């Protein structure tokens, strides 16, 4: 599964992109966030407040309780601030 990070999520983790292979128990975006928090201090810091995170699966916004399903690309980021 390819993960993308943007804005302060990217900065805290220290990379904008990584490949991960989460265990089968990781079924939703929220599960993924909780699992990622265990990977490194940077990941833990980025995932510390899930309510401040937003997600997209295969380039579509999804709620955090969305199932990962057959997701190829999952992105995690703060609420958007364009325009």
């Amino acid at each position, binding site marked *: 599964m390819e993960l*993308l990070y943007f804005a302060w999520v990217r900065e805290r983790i220290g990379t904008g992109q990584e490949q991960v292979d989460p265990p089968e128990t990781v079924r939703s975006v929220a599960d993924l966030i909780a699992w990622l928090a265990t990977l490194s201090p940077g990941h833990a810091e980025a995932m510390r407040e899930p309510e401040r995170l937003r997600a*997209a699966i295969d380039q579509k*916004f999804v709620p955090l309780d969305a199932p990962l399903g057959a997701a190829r690309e999952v992105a995690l980021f*703060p609420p*958007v*601030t*364009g*325009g």
Partner: protein
Amino acid sequence: MIRVSVDSAPIELAVEVAALDEPGAGGVATFTGLVRADDGVTGLELEHYPGMTEQALIALAETATERWSLLGVTMVHRVGAMEPGDRIVFIGTVAQHRREALDACAWLIDRLKTDAPFWKRETRGETASWVEARASDAAAAARWDAPRG
């Protein structure tokens, strides 16, 4: 015609406005968003999600085209490093009648604020900070879904 662009080059208003010429047009509405110098902001950096950004803008343009029978839509968003006074975003809509062009333009900028994956980081001298999303933007986008008066 739908035209969407996400680019680090400065937005050239004259070019964008000229590109809005459509046969049969009765009204053209535009909105341009600029980097404000207030609050001591000295610079702005725009990050985005390549691929998803363009898809999100095209989806908004298509929805607006259908809802307001538009003849043309342009959405241009700048990314990368900017300075106060620079143009961040340009929206242009073309319709047969003024109301459609004006409403679609206002809707597009409201929805772009909540539906397109951009993130702003402001610089104030030596300090940089990510801009927090504002509840007022979510409210502005949501008001279009409410029953009309």
